[in-house]
């Protein structure tokens, strides 16, 4: 049965508009990326959903991001889980899904990404939210999620049945598994889970970890996207 869902998920991929091979994450900073070439797009934090006090608080983006017309724009919605693990409610699920859907509609981006470092106890909630989002936005919406590398450590995990087009393992700030993951990635290897093999996310200080064969690379900057940093990344990631 998991194979069926994986196949169904992969079929969705063929119907959605895919982002370019290089995506730059843009977080909570004013940014001017009008010099980006066509082979690169922006994945910008468009809103943040904070789960706390039994509610879901939504904060939209307040920092300007300038890109030239035609640049591929991926709206990222970051979910901040509760500080202390609690049972997340149906109301929080509904509001989180609604916030993600509305962000996608308001921003009218070319693609959508959800970023949530879900705890083990929060995976059911997250899966349900993604299911609701997919149902609301339909199969033509390119839907990506970030992933902790620990989620990618086995061929069959909860990732396999998620209704998303793309899973992006974040190969930076990996915690205790960093050494093993770095060794794997520096040698050009891929994570065991097949859903974690098409795309990779690295920081500007870890570009070497993205040397393997990937359909797409996401780059996270420590600091702002200066022209110098941008040139460096574009020259390194061809």
């Amino acid at each position, binding site marked *: 049965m998991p194979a069926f869902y994986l196949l169904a998920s992969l079929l969705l991929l063929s119907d959605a508009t895919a982002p370019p091979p290089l995506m730059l994450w843009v977080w909570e*900073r*004013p940014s001017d990326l009008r010099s980006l070439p066509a082979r690169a797009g922006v994945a*910008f934090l*468009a*809103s*943040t959903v*904070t789960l*706390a*006090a039994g*509610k*879901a*608080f*939504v*904060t*939209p*983006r*307040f*920092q*300007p*991001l*300038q*890109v030239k017309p035609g640049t591929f*724009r991926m709206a990222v919605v970051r979910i*901040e889980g509760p*500080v*202390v693990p609690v049972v997340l409610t149906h109301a929080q699920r509904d*509001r989180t899904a*609604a*916030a993600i859907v*509305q*962000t996608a509609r*308001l*921003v*009218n981006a070319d693609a959508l990404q959800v970023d949530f470092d879900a705890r*083990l106890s929060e995976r059911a909630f997250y899966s349900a939210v993604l299911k609701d989002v997919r149902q609301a936005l339909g199969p033509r919406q390119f839907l990506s999620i970030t992933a*902790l590398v*620990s989620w990618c*450590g*086995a061929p069959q995990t909860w990732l396999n049945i998620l209704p998303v087009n793309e899973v992006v393992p974040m190969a930076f700030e990996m*915690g*205790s*598994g960093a050494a*093993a993951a770095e060794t794997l990635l520096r040698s050009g290897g891929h994570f065991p889970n097949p859903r974690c093999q098409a795309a990779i996310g690295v920081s500007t200080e870890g570009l070497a970890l993205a040397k393997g064969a990937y359909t797409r690379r996401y780059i996270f900057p420590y*600091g*702002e996207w*200066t022209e110098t940093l941008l040139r460096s990344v574009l020259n390194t990631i061809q």
Partner: protein
Amino acid sequence: MKPLVAVLAASILTLALAIACSPSFPKAVFTFARHPDFPRTRYLAGELGILQPTYARSYLVIAYRYLQDHPLSADERQQVREYWKDRQTGQWDNTATDWPGKWEKIRHKVPSAVPHAPNPVTGDRYAYAPPTNDFFLNCADDAYQTAVLTLRERAARFGYQSAALRSWRDAQDMVFHNCDGKTPAIPPPAGQALPPLLRSDRAYQIAAAHFYAGQHNEAVAAFRAIATDASSPWQWIAPYLVVRTLARAAVDGRSKDLAEKAARDLLASRDPRLHAMTTVLLRRVILKQRDEGYFHELSQHGLRQLRSRLAGGTLGLHQSLRRLYPLPFAGSAVRRLERLDSYLPVSRQQLLRPRAGTLAADPQ
């Protein structure tokens, strides 16, 4: 021996798989450096445990009170809980009144209110700006407050059940429809059947709808017309709203200069009802000049004040920043001051002197 080796090998393999598959921390966590153990309610009640000097200042303040044998009162403990909730949620709710919520309630007192749920992202307050891919505060709390108070007053005169008031409410709904930047909705002109007061209200609602819909030329013209209408209850504030519209519409140097001049001219008129709000508006206009050196100076000024005020134990800067910056930014202004300087790709050699009569005159 062989079984022992097998067991050891199996254990190591299992351990390796466990490391590969499960999230884990690099070390065991016995204490927290920045805050007391959970639940924090025990700490709040005076069970301080073993205090760490590395706790955030907000926790040390609580400890200081208990150690001085001056426990927090019930009201103070509730304030602390509110503060923790604000930090946890990133929502700065230091205003006690939910004016959008109040508007939603009172509009239902007039019959046939169309059900409405606020957009979860915009909250019927923010609008999306496609050129800069960000959101801005479009309909502030004062818009909803004015609507609530005005509807109350008009209901006292004409009755919630009257057709006139229903027309008023429907027009106001159209005004607020523009708050999250959807397709513009402008109320129709008032019919002659409406009482004169409500016709004046309608002119104001139309001007406001143009403003929130981003139709700045139409808004300026409409507010200017109200400013010359002695019979309108909105005549007194219309000049300010003309300036506010010019400020919002300002996108280049020339239009920003125009907005700044209009604000200064209004201040020169010395209308005491408009002075404070126009002063704040003028500061925003100047900040919007995107004078990079001015931002840099502002951030340095803010940091100097912040450091001196933290040392002195007061934090009035936060309140003063709220008057300068849009509401959402002010909610984390203290935290972001440190980062403001990094937003500006300017060197100290490019720093420009602050304009006379502006930042230097800022009492904070």
